[in-house]
């Protein structure tokens, strides 16, 4: 019996998470419905003011509010299966690098959030942006969405591990999550808004924030990777 490689452990754990989610669709369904509800609330909130305001300039911010709260809901549930029946302990008994548990869970969370974004972002565009002039840079919103999602899923995964055994885990997760992702969120909102409006200050309002967001992702994911063993063992 040879100990499998880290990559093999990662693939096995990721496959398990995907199989489980696509069988139960718990995270995807709850996140999808929540995203739809937020869009409906936006519709009511903006119904009377839409004529007077420039929705394109608010689009980036509104879109990220939708993504952050939808992700928060999913991330809070991402360890529900691990906690049930002591599965996390079963995995912890296996001789493997604990950081692989983080990596597999973070990647599965990224994929689930991206699936919801693929549905929610076009819906958001359809309901609120169809009357607006389309900037040629609009497809560039994919970059901040991807960078932001990776960072949020990484930070959210470690925070979800920390809070999974606490009594008021949902509140605690939100209280820790929002301040930690704030720099990333700020950068991604700026870049997304720049892509939607097609600003002339492209380097300042799109490229720089995106570079900062990428840097933030790298630093935070490395910190999460290094700390995960301590977090799950404590």
């Amino acid at each position: 019996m040879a100990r499998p490689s880290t990559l093999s452990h990662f693939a096995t754990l990721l496959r398990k998470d995907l199989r489980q989610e696509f069988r139960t669709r718990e995270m995807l369904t709850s996140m999808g419905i929540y995203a739809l509800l937020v869009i409906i609330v936006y519709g009511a909130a903006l119904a009377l003011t839409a004529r007077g305001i420039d929705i394109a300039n608010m689009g980036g911010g509104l879109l990220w509010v939708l993504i952050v709260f939808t992700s928060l809901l999913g991330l809070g549930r991402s360890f529900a299966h691990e906690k049930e029946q002591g599965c996390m302990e079963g995995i912890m008994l296996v001789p493997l690098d604990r950081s692989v548990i983080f990596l597999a869970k973070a990647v599965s969370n990224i994929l689930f959030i991206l699936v919801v974004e693929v549905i929610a972002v076009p819906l958001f565009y359809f309901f609120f942006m169809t009357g607006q002039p389309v900037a040629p840079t609009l497809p560039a919103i994919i970059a901040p969405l991807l960078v932001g999602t990776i960072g949020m899923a990484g930070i959210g995964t470690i925070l979800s591990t920390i809070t999974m055994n606490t009594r008021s885990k949902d509140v605690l997760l939100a209280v820790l999550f929002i301040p930690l992702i704030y720099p990333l969120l700020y950068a991604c909102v700026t870049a997304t808004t720049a892509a939607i409006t097609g600003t002339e200050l492209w380097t300042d309002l799109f490229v720089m924030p995106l570079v900062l967001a990428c840097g933030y992702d790298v630093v935070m994911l490395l910190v999460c990777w290094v700390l995960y063993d301590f977090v799950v063992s404590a």
Partner: protein
Amino acid sequence: MNAVEAKHLSKAFGIRKAVDDVSFELPEGAFLSIFGSNGAGKTTLLRVLSTLARPSDGQAFIYGIDLKEDPDKARECIGMISHASMLYPDLTAEENLLLYAELYGVDDPKARVSQLLDAVGLSHRRLDQVRTFSRGMTQRVSIARALVHDPRVVFLDEPYSGLDPHAVEIFDNLIESVRGDRTFVMVSHDLAKGFGMCTHALVMSRGRVVSFAPKDQLDYDEFARLYRETVGMGVA
């Protein structure tokens, strides 16, 4: 070489010592039953010995492997059955066992899983989700999970909780059939059953060892009296 060894082992949570200066040696093939009242530190001791918790002080060894220095090496030798099944309810019995077999790097995982499902009498339910199983059936799959990598030491943490008498009988027969030269360490509240199965008995109170001895040196009535006195001492 001893299969399990603890040397002045302690585990503290803040200022409270859940396990306090515990020492014992267990030879290969032995079956140790650990008794004590709620809060005596039995489960914490088991968690430390199974590498799920780090000791605050002292040392523990599994076949001479220091748990602090090389926990991964020790984990290769350890299996654990607890009242929680450690199985994913939405995966099938076969998927659960394959998951653990692949994580442990078992050679030919499919054949091993098939063999284990046969052994626990659940081959016919291998494609059913664990969520649909009774408590007794789930615990049988849990035995298969714990043995998937053929561990030399198996820890049992109150494995009978929630089982009906028929399931207990099946569980006992299964444990007996896989016993071989494996070493077992079981935490139990059931004195008669735990004493009946063991080769060594350990009584804990307030994190400390009150008594540790091979069964052949113990008289059951005397031991039962000691146990009742110890449990009467209450929670730490």
